[in-house]
């Protein structure tokens, strides 16, 4: 089970390893707040959907399993969306349409079909947690690079109260060297490509080690 969890981070990281859920990754990695907020929403939906789908896997008729999964996922996303709208309005505005688009995030349906429909609820929950945190981790990494290069500073505010800044870091001397390119989609692709390459190298290395054993 620990291996399932660990897999989500490096070997099968949904973003850098499986290349799933790219759309939201590229669009939302502009700031640390967006990245962590979105990552946690996805993680929550992923854990709940994995558990629910795994619980009903024995009574779900094979012919309608995909519609059933979609209904469950859509319900969870709507619920999460309403809670975010109610308690974190700032985050709700900055995530915009991508929050509701979690429904079609292929990580969630992918894990439902590939894992939760074949395994028990506990294992599915752990798989969801691992995958979700893997996604959050990937988004956070990209957003750190992008936010820093685009603003030469990084700020993290309390999602429940946007005026309360929890963490802020900036290098004033670098202020004139902001690269605003990184706040646009080009920057997203560049950053993503570098990380994907880095992770590919790490994976290759790990595989070699395993073979040597």
């Amino acid at each position: 089970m620990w291996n399932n969890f660990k897999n989500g981070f490096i070997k099968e990281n949904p973003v850098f390893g499986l290349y799933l859920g790219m759309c939201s990754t590229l669009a939302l990695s502009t700031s640390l707040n967006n990245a962590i907020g979105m990552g946690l929403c996805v993680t929550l939906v992923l854990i709940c959907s994995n558990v629910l789908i795994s619980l009903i896997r024995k009574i779900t008729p094979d012919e309608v399993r995909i519609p059933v999964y979609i209904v469950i996922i859509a319900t969870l996303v709507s619920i999460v969306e309403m809670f975010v709208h109610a308690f974190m309005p700032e985050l709700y505005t900055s995530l915009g349409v991508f929050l509701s688009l979690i429904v079609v995030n292929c990580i969630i349906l992918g894990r439902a079909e590939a894992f939760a429909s074949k395994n028990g609820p506990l294992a599915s929950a752990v798989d969801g947690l691992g995958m979700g945190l893997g996604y959050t981790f990937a988004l956070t990494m990209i957003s750190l690079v992008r936010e820093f290069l685009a603003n030469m500073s990084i700020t993290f505010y309390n999602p429940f109260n946007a005026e309360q800044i929890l963490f802020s870091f900036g290098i004033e001397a670098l202020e004139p060297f902001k690269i605003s390119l990184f706040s646009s989609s080009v920057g997203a692709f560049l950053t993503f490509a570098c990380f994907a390459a880095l992770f590919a190298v790490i994976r290759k290395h790990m595989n070699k080690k395993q073979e040597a054993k």
Partner: protein
Amino acid sequence: MKKTLSLVLFLGIISALSGLCIGYVNGITEPLIAANELASEKQNLELMYPGKEFITIDYTGDDENILGIYEVSGEAYIVKVQGYGYSSTPIVALIGFDTEGTISNLIILSNQETNGYGSRCFEEEFINTAYIGKAMDEDVDMVSGATLTSTAMQNMIAAARNAVSALY
């Protein structure tokens, strides 16, 4: 046939259950969302009536340009309204009406009208003479050379009057 029925039934039950859950959560979150929206609008409303209490009023009409109506307890109504002038981005304004329906206050929240032409409609001096103090049935002034923006303002005021007149 039996197989199909059981499939339909299964999917139906799942959908009904999820509908139930969504309805329940909506019941919890809806008042909070409405309160949040009022809070975010409040800083604009405070510009017109500092230190007052505001209540959101449900708008029942079908004018898409009416973005919201607020009541300043017993004193005035404020209508948030948008209109299209020269730019494809709408002009958004708050228009305050006193108890007689006279325009008592007008604030432009956002606009992308041409600077120096259309924007003359938004100068404080012009707002004070052309719009403020006009009773329900009085016409408002135009700016020559800024026909589109002026017309948009006229339409917005007409829409706001229309929406608010039902409340008196």
